[in-house]
């Protein structure tokens, strides 16, 4: 494993297989929190943070407990419980040791438990992927966690910027609100489709 493959993983997760626009993971917060730019940035930071920690913890659980004990079929139950507990723990630790960060991220943390992007990144790290043809190593899992979070933040911030402008636009009645946000996301996804020409996987 070299630095090249870590770069490949990052670019793959941020641009080519963007979590929101290409893999449809984490759509609920994507449409729910993208109305204002400031809250989009806060949500993005919280997701990067939790995704990185979740990637680490679930990798350790997968490789130190589930695989040696042949309990891999319990993966779904264990991962979702770990993530739910982790979010609570992160919330408590932040509240105690970094009140300013807690102020900034606090309200977004409870929303993250049911964010499918977090469980998604844990499952993808543990599964066999196209790049390395085996589950990620610990370092690769961390990089994939950070990069997926950044990819999510990028899409969320871009979307929030567009939606702030969109409020002033004259949208046809039935398309007001969520439908026009979907059209925007669709156009953004077409733009991101352009990155799929990057030939990193061979």
């Amino acid at each position, binding site marked *: 494993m070299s630095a090249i493959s870590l770069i490949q993983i990052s670019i793959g997760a941020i641009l080519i297989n963007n979590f929101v626009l290409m893999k*449809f993971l984490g759509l*609920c917060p994507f449409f729910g929190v993208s109305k204002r730019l400031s809250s989009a940035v806060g949500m993005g930071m919280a997701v990067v943070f939790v995704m990185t920690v979740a990637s680490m913890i679930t990798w350790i659980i997968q490789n130190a407990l589930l695989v040696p004990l042949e309990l891999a079929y*319990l993966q*779904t139950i264990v991962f979702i*419980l770990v993530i739910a*507990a982790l979010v609570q723990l992160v919330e408590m630790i932040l509240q105690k040791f970094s009140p300013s960060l807690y102020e900034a991220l606090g309200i977004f943390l409870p929303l993250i438990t049911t964010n499918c992007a977090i469980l*998604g990144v844990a499952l*993808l790290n543990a599964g066999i992927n196209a790049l390395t043809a085996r589950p990620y190593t610990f370092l690769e899992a961390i990089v994939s966690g950070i990069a997926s979070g950044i990819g999510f933040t990028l899409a969320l911030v871009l979307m929030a910027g567009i939606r702030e402008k969109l409020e002033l636009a004259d949208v046809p009645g039935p398309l007001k609100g969520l439908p026009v946000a979907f059209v925007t996301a669709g156009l953004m*996804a077409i733009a991101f489709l352009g990155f799929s020409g990057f030939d990193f996987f061979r």
Partner: protein
Amino acid sequence: MIGAELKRGIVTENPILILALGLCPSLAVSTSLVNGLGMGLAATFVLVASNIIISLVKGFIPEKVRIPCFIVVIATFVTIVQLVMKAYLPELNASLGIFVPLIVVNCVILGRAEAFASKNNLFRSLIDGLVMGLGFTVALCILSVFREVLGSNKLLGLKFLPGFQPMSVFILAPGGFLTIAFVMGIVNYVRQKKEAK
């Protein structure tokens, strides 16, 4: 009563098209009707089963830890679906991929557990799970029919219109967003027309 409940689940409170819940799986797997139907039925099974269990044990669960308890119940049934699908429908399992385990975080299921099954009796929760699951499945099928016909000119794997050039963007990611945008737009248009009357 069944008729009114069916209308509530499929039309007036449709989980995807009206309430906008469970968007991730509905956009990701609606690339073909078989996938959409498979996902819809799997989610319906989990929804009905978890609603039954949660309405039975609601008296024993302390208020503070109810969400983790609900998630464990839901995750158990998702694991059952995962194992059954892997054994008997390996092709469907491969094309749904990561979205089978992700039924756990489908907000329709947790939403119904929290809003309905934890407050109502067994029979009403069962009916609610059934109609909401059907509403989810119907909406998924509508999306998948549009995407499969426009994107690959096929329906259930069979050729649809001879001489029609399929627009492959509709089975790629952007097509999912555009399809749901216009289906929701049509639904809103019909609703506004009805309210104006």
